């Protein structure tokens, strides 16, 4: 079992105990008003989003095992960190994900089939972040930590435009960037901290510490709790129980509003766990113990939130309805995946450049002539 105790703050912000009891700890006090503003409808929407993404994620993993996807990147176990933080954003905010933030993308409005298309090998992107329907959710970035700098640059742009700090939270903009415990070792993440602190950008660094960078434990990445890295750069930082959706929501909301108001960047470290593999190419039984996995399964974010909602009076009919909807969503994902067609060859040559480029044009023309010359020959 990995020794993670020294990586935990005295009191990571927590509202819900693992059994679903509402028991805010001392760290949660200042965030309580943000939880109080959530009514039953809002809470139930959060639960639904978590359950939907869980079902989608499990089905996508199955599709990969059946040869329908080149790869799958499971989000199983991280739903509270993702849905809570995503629900804390405002429509005008911009989100820079790494590549596991399926729940954030869904909350922001992207069609998750776009993620399927990427991992089926049909595109390197999948959606247009400029399309208002996509909730300013930027593309997945596979080089670990690279997106932290893009997010910071974007936030610098917000600052240069004067689009924050006016005191109008309905219009002031902010940026959220997602990254993991492994990414904290990348130079780009440190450089993003430097630039963000230097320019006092309106952004929240949302660190999902799921304890494993493929097979390497977080103890190999850091000898200090990761949230304290932010403090070293002059960025106010806080550690939360990332499997508590209320903590994720409230802490992100408060920090994001402080950032958008001109308070500078913030870091939120969400302690969570990757229940599944890093990707479907990985075998976590080679590096993790059953005991460790079981200890985190016992802290499952969806079961915890379900117990809480039941305590608040949510009826079986609600949970049954969500379960049925999630099952349909998974089935629909399967049906739509099997119907996807391969892209045409010109996809390779399109959009390498925005302006005309003679080399790609010439090679595309050549490929056309070559393929034409094969017609009537052996079937390809």
């Amino acid at each position, binding site marked *: 079992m990995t020794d993670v105790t020294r990586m935990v703050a005295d009191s990571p912000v927590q509202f819900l105990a693992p059994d679903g009891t509402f028991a805010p700890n001392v760290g949660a006090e200042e965030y309580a008003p943000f939880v109080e503003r959530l009514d039953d409808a809002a809470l139930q929407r959060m639960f639904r989003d978590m359950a939907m993404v869980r079902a989608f994620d499990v089905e996508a993993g199955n599709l990969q095992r059946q040869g329908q996807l080149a790869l799958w990147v499971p989000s199983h176990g991280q739903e509270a960190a993702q849905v809570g933080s995503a629900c804390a954003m405002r429509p005008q905010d911009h989100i820079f994900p790494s590549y596991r933030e399926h729940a954030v993308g869904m909350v922001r409005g992207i069609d998750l089939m776009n993620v399927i298309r990427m991992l089926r090998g049909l595109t390197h992107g999948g959606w247009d972040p400029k399309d208002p329907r996509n909730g300013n959710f930027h593309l997945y970035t596979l080089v670990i930590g690279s997106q932290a700098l*893009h997010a910071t640059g974007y936030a610098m742009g917000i600052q240069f435009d004067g689009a924050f700090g006016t005191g109008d939270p309905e219009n002031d903009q902010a940026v959220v960037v997602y990254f993991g415990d492994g990414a904290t070792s990348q130079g780009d993440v440190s450089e993003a901290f430097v*630039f963000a602190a230097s320019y006092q950008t309106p952004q929240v660094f949302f660190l999902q510490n799921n304890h494993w960078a493929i097979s390497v434990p977080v103890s190999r990445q850091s000898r200090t709790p990761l949230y304290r890295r932010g403090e070293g750069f002059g960025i106010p930082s806080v550690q939360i129980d990332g499997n508590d959706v209320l903590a994720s929501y409230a802490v992100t909301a408060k920090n994001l509003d402080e950032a958008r108001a001109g308070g500078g960047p913030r870091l939120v470290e969400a302690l969570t766990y990757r229940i599944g593999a890093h990707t479907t190419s990985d075998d976590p039984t080679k590096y993790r113990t059953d005991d460790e996995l079981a200890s985190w399964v016992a802290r499952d974010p969806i079961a915890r939130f379900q117990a809480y909602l039941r305590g608040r009076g949510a009826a079986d009919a609600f949970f049954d309805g969500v379960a049925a909807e999630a099952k349909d969503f998974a089935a629909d994902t399967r049906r739509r995946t099997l119907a996807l067609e391969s892209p045409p060859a010109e996809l390779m040559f399109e959009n*390498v450049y925005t302006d005309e480029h*003679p080399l790609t044009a010439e090679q595309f023309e050549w490929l056309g002539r070559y393929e034409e010359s094969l017609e009537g020959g052996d079937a390809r």
Partner: protein
Amino acid sequence: MTEVGTVTTPTTSELQTMPMAKALNAGLAAAMAADERVLLMGEDIGTLGGVFRVTEGLKNTYGEHRVLDTPLAESGIVGTAIGLAMRGYRPVCEIQFDGFIFPGFDQITTQLAKLTNRHEGAQAFPIVIRVPYGGHIGAVEHHQESPEAYFAHTAGLRSVSPSTPHDAYWMIQEAIAANDPVMFFEPKSRYWQKGAVDLAAPAVPLHSSRVVRTGSDVTVLAHGAMVSVLLQAAELAASEGISLEVVDLRSIAPIDYAPILESVRKTGRLIVAQEAPGNVSVGSEIAATVAERAFYSLEAPVLRVSGFDVPFPPAKLEGVFLPDADRILEAVDRALAY
């Protein structure tokens, strides 16, 4: 306009003499005046005006939000420029010296070069990365290199290099106006050489190569500072009765082959010169392509005159490393021996 013989030249109000560093400064200022989304970012480029003073005075004119003295981190400069471009800005990044581009290499090659493709054309990335490059300045390690082949090899990037103040003035503006990432290699040994800049019009479009001295026996080709070495060699050759045609490549990626092939079809011989090490270089690519496309016109193999395949040497040896007019003429003799 004044008439000089049969050649029309611009009036003095349009024709100004200035060194390349000033021409770049004027070009940057013109681009910033034309489009408020253009901003400059880099190390020491604001208050100091850059270690080569290329951005001198621009911070005073345009303010600290358009001329950014960034933290000392090349990946950070390029990575945040990408975010700024997503926001609608047109960043121009200065990398202080050629050999310091490598901390930013990841963001340039894995992100900047691929982002238009990843976005399936939905987002353009009009970012210029200025790189003072090349030798002849007697500097320490990492300060005299020619890394352009790494970038020419990467799809999604454009790479250009001016050889004169006039081209520098216009090409920097054209690079900023381009909707793709442009690597802008500035021959730093030419920063202080004066030349005429016609403020009325560029000579040719950004991605054009150009014959800068006509000749009939051998075509010699280069970009950046090496063009001046070729012109010197052409003078020496002429005194021995050998006529060299000099082509200024200007654009490293894409390469404009039409003027090169036309010249080779006339002379039948081509020598490609570069400061960069020759192994897997821009010169290698040109040699291969010319051999493919002008095989029956060639009277001799295409020859390369390059830096040696060693790390750029300590400054006291740079004269041995860098091709000079004599090394060009030695290659001319070899080409003519076929």
